Structures are given as structure tokens and as C-alpha cells.
């Protein structure tokens, strides 16, 4: 009995090693698909976009890479023919405003659905938030053009209430910002809802037990714990708003031309591929810097903690 055959114990060691190798390498194999995806659909377009922006030529003669870094100064410098810097600044301003509006409107909506309704109402209410997606984005936006138009229901009412006949909404920055906020509202509500839903309800009880009045509980517990939702919402809404060409086109007027429209027009209509690429590169860099700075100021080390 004492003679234990150790070989039977040591035997499995090599299969275990092999299995461990297999187990360790699995994440890398799994990552291949993701990395390939990122390279093919993100890295290559990114680099080729950068390169196209440094080309010179025109659509008839073709474009060749001449490392024309001067195009950035030419488009955004003080002597630019078309004020692209203005369009970019305007887009950022509209984007920030629209994002703030979606937070102000979206947070209470998400809060209400997460905490103030019985579970059986949550799904229908969330569905209601999403239901606007069933209608084409263009149609939805164009309907606002009708609602806000000179003879539309809103202005007719305002004029009857004694607002001056010259007052109009359509064609103003307010209309464009409103359209951006309206179209992006679900992208703010849903992440905030998810973040709120995740909070352990006992934390609120604990906060109340520690003599927190409802306001303090909200400010010190609910709001900080739903920060990740707000952050994701801001990412989704702000990026989408700044690059959007459609709202400005349908709801805007003369002084609401945005960088998204400029990219679309230079690419499709004027076929100045280098200009379009340079504009989108600058837009991307501007967005990157803003979001990075925002993440730092917001006080987290890792963006992924928040998302």
C-alpha cells in the first residue's frame, strides 16, 4: 500500500500544461477578430483619411500624396476663403448646448423610469423612449420643420398670443439645437437609466439613515453613482451632434452652416476629397481633445471605468 506509483500523479501534468496554454492563449485568439475589425474598419480608414487630407489635386486630374500639411493652415488659418473655423466652433457650441439640454431633459426621465414606476411599466416606458426610432430620422426632423414653420401650429399659437409677427424659430440656431437635442434624447436617457437601475437601493436607505435629506441623498449618492451613465450619454450625444449635417440642413437657415455640412458638401458636391478629409480630421482631433480633457476634469483615470 505504501508503494504509491507516483508516475500516475505526474502523468496529467503535461496535458494540464497544454490545457493551460490553450486557456491562456484563448483571449489572444479571441482578440484577433476584434483587432482585425479595429484595424480594417478603424485604423486603415483613419490613416487613409489623414493621407487623403495631405494630397493635392482635383477630381479630374486625380489626387496625389504631396504631404501638403499647408492645407490645414489654408482651411483654418485667418486667410481662409470659407470660414471653416467658424463652422467648427459653431458645431461645437451647438453640440455642447444640445448635450446639456438632453441631460436636463433626459435625467429626470431616466430617474422617473428607474425609481418611480412599478416594474411592469418600465418596459413600455422605455419602449416609448425608443419608439421615435421607428420613424425615419429625416422624416422626424422634417416634421419639426413643419411644426416650427411660419404657419405651423406653434407659431400660429404664439402669434395669436400676441408675439410679434416677425418672430420665427425655423432657420435659427435654436431650431437646429432643438433638433439635435430631440434626435439624440434617447441616447442620453438609456445609459442614464442603465446606470441608475444598477444602483443598490439599500444605499439610499443607508444615506437616509445617516440623516441625509432627499436633496443630499440625491447629490451625494444618486448623482455620483449615475455619473457613468451621464458620461456615456455625453459621449454618444455630443459626438453625434457635432458631426451631424441633417438637422442644420433641414431646420437651419443662413447662419447655421455646420462643419458636418461642410464635410458633406466638400466631399459629395465639390468633390474636394482632400478638403473633406482635412475637415474631418480636424473635427476628429477637436472632439478627441475635448473628450479627453473632459474625462480628466471629470476626475477619473480611466475612461473605461465610466463607460
Amino acid at each position, binding site marked *: 500500500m505504501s508503494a504509491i506509483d507516483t508516475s500516475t500523479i505526474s502523468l496529467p501534468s503535461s496535458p494540464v500544461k497544454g490545457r493551460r496554454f490553450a486557456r491562456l492563449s484563448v483571449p489572444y485568439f479571441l482578440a484577433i477578430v476584434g483587432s482585425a475589425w479595429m484595424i480594417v474598419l478603424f485604423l486603415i480608414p483613419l490613416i487613409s483619411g489623414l*493621407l487623403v487630407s495631405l494630397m493635392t489635386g482635383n477630381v479630374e486630374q486625380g489626387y496625389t500624396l504631396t504631404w501638403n500639411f499647408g492645407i490645414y493652415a489654408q482651411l483654418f488659418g485667418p486667410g481662409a476663403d470659407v470660414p471653416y473655423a467658424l463652422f467648427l466652433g459653431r458645431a461645437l457650441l451647438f453640440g455642447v448646448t444640445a448635450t446639456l439640454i438632453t441631460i436636463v431633459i433626459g435625467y429626470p426621465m431616466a430617474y422617473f423610469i428607474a425609481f418611480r414606476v412599478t416594474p411592469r411599466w418600465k418596459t413600455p416606458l422605455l419602449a416609448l423612449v425608443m419608439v421615435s426610432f421607428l420613424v425615419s430620422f429625416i422624416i422626424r426632423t422634417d416634421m419639426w420643420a413643419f411644426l416650427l414653420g411660419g404657419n405651423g401650429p406653434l407659431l400660429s399659437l404664439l402669434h395669436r398670443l400676441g408675439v410679434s409677427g416677425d418672430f420665427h424659430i425655423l432657420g435659427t440656431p435654436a431650431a437646429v439645437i432643438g433638433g439635435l437635442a430631440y434626435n439624440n434624447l434617447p441616447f442620453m436617457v438609456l445609459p442614464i437609466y442603465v446606470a441608475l437601475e444598477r444602483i443598490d437601493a439599500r444605499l439610499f436607505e443607508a444615506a437616509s439613515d445617516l440623516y441625509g435629506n432627499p436633496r443630499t441623498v440625491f447629490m451625494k449618492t444618486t448623482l455620483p453613482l449615475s455619473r457613468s451613465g451621464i458620461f456615456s450619454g455625453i459621449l454618444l450625444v455630443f459626438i453625434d451632434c457635432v458631426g451631424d449635417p441633417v438637422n442644420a440642413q433641414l431646420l437651419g437657415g443662413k447662419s447655421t452652416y455646420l462643419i458636418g455640412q461642410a464635410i458633406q458638401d466638400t466631399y459629395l458636391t465639390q468633390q474636394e476629397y482632400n478638403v473633406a478629409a482635412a475637415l474631418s480630421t480636424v473635427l476628429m482631433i477637436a472632439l478627441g481633445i475635448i473628450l479627453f480633457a473632459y474625462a480628466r476634469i471629470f476626475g477619473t483615470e480611466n475612461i473605461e471605468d465610466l463607460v
Partner: protein
Amino acid sequence: MSDPERDPSRDPALLRGLTQSRISRRGLIRAGGALGGAAAISALLAACSIPGSDQGGAAASEIDWTSWWAGKKKAGTLNFANWPLYIDQDDKGNSQSLALFTKATGIEVNYKEVIQDIPGFYAKVAPLLRGKQSTGYDLMVITNGWELTEMIQNGWLAQLDHSQLPNFAKYADPSIMFPSFDPGNLHSAVWQTGFTGLAYNEKLTGPITSFADLLDPKYKGKIGMLSDNTEYGNAALLAIGVDPNKSTRDDWKKAYDWLKKLEPNVAKFYDQGYTDALQNGDIWISQCYSGDIFQVQAGGHPEIKYVTPKEGQVMWHDNMCIPITADHPVDALAWMNFYYTPEIAGLVADYVNYVCPVPAARDYILNTIGDPDVANSPLVFPNAETLAKSHEYYVYKDYADYQAWNKLFNPIAQS
């Protein structure tokens, strides 16, 4: 495509693509891991340039069109690319004129409403035409403008065999037979013609008669212009009293100054939707397309008026043309000929309400269809006086000319 000279495998761009190594996905990952993407970048750099459209133009002029057409056979299929609401349709979307064509010739028509605007459509087909590939369409309706000029200059359009177009010679309006953009109708035949004039809401403005009226300060923020720089540029040339096709660069500069003077009054540069804005009172006066206004009036808005400005108006043409890479060019040519009859052109004009290229269609609409509103409309069958005031767009001499135009006029709408 049986001609060995046009064998796609001989295309140098394709050969280059076949012989040069391509970037494989796995290769990229390996490169990315080893070199931090440097290899990928250098591979991209090697392939880095975007070919221009200025290719094959010379080759096209050498084509012997008689033998080109002789080598083509009727296929029984026609892929027709057109604009929305631009052919007669009943409530179910069926077109009587297309049905008659199929009955008469046995050619089935795949009618596609894929052209929303010329730059967008052109951006889709131009790369295919450049690569000498089929666009999937045998017949396209293209407005005269830079894109049509470029397609003709590049040799992307088949030269029409007029021996197969007897109806065109017999019925086409003389005013459309010698267009400035395509002398001799070698590459195009007009589908519909339209005017770009002015529309106004009579209840809000009273009568408007000229471009000069637009400068009145009382219309501040009440004027719509079309966002296409060809439209507002040519309109401004007319406004300063210059025939666009005789204009010089100095005239362009003056037209630009006129538009700058107009700017405080402009509410918006419209792609579309200006008719709604006119009806709603968002704008009072707008640059407009004649057919749109005809339909607005027919839709119960008689207060929206169309006017040919005293200074003149632009007359444009949407033209049927056959890409050189078309799969079924003979069928496309057959439709062109079939269209140029009073009956078919009449059916179409009665529905779309733009200017009909076949004057004899007026009797057909009046007597056979029984629609005097259309038959007697000056917007569908214009009189000689209107035609005398109508000018064609400026025809760009070459790409540099087109670029100069864009550079001057684009900042007007982009502000």
C-alpha cells in the same frame, strides 16, 4: 464588350491591382504587432493616390460608333435611372408609358427612382465609369451642368445612333435640338426641360416682376434661394443683365457682388422644401423650379405665383443619356425613340408638368387626355416670348473653369 480593345482585363488599373500584392488582413495584424503599423502605413502609401476622372477621353473619340452600335444586340431589358415623380404613374406606381413600351417592343423596364440630386448620383456612378465598369443603368436622366459636360468630355457616354431615332428628328422641339452643352445631341436627348425663375406668395408680397425686386429691404429674411451654386450664380448673372453663356470672369465677380447685396434678405439656401416654406409663409419669395410651382398651384395654392423675371430666367434640361458601359444600350436607344412621340411624351408631361420636349404632345394632352390645365399652361408648353427670355446655364469650359466658379460662388451659400 467583345471588342478586344475594350477587354476589361486589359485595363491598366485592373492589371496593377492584380499584380501588386494586396494588404491581407492577417498580414496587417502581423505587421501591426511587429512594426506598430508601420508596414501597413507604407503599404498604404504605395497605393496612395486617387485616380482622376480625366482618363479615356481620347480613347472614346477614336471609337467607330457605327461598328460599336453594330456590335450591340437588343437584350429585352432596360435599366432606367430617373428622378422621383418624373414619369407618369398611377396610384399603384405603374407607368402607362413604360407598359406601352414593353407591349410594343417586348423590352422589360426596370425603372429606378435613384437620382435625388446630380452630385450625389454622380458621386456614385463616376468611379464606376472611370473604371470602365457598368453602372447598372442603361439610361440615366442627367441635368445639364458640370457633371454632364465632364461625362461627355471624358467619353463616358455612348454617342447616339440618330439613324435609330427617327422620332426625335420628327417631333423634337427645335429649341432643344441644338443645346449649348451637347452640340448636335450627340450624347443626349432631352427628357424634360424646366425653368428656374421666381415664385412668390401673392398674399404676402403683391406682384413681383424682377430680380431687382428682391433687393427691397422690406423682404429682409423673407427670400429663399436654391442652394446649388449653378442656380444662384446663373440667376445673379441674369440679374445684372448678362447672358450666362456670354459671361466673363469679370461678370461673375459682379454677380457675386449682387448676391452679397441680396444676402441680408435671404432666409435660407434650399435643397428642397422651399415650396412648403412659401406656402407656410416662412419665406415670401423664392428662386424656384417651374414644375414645382405648377404642382403647388394644382395642389390648391393659387396664391403662389410663378414669374419669369424681367431680366430673364434659366432654362435647364434633364437629358436621357446612355453610359458607354451600359449593358443594354440598344434597348435604351429604343426607349429614347419611343419616348419622342406625342402620345408618350404627352402621357409623361401630363403627369410631371415640366416643359415637354415634343410640341405635338399638346394636342394629345388637350384632345385625347382632355387636360386643358396642362395643355394651356405656359409652364409646360411655353410661348415664344417666354422662350426668348430663357437662357441656358453657363457651360464650363474645363475643370479649372468649374473650380473658379465654385471658389467664387460657394462661400455665398456656405456662411
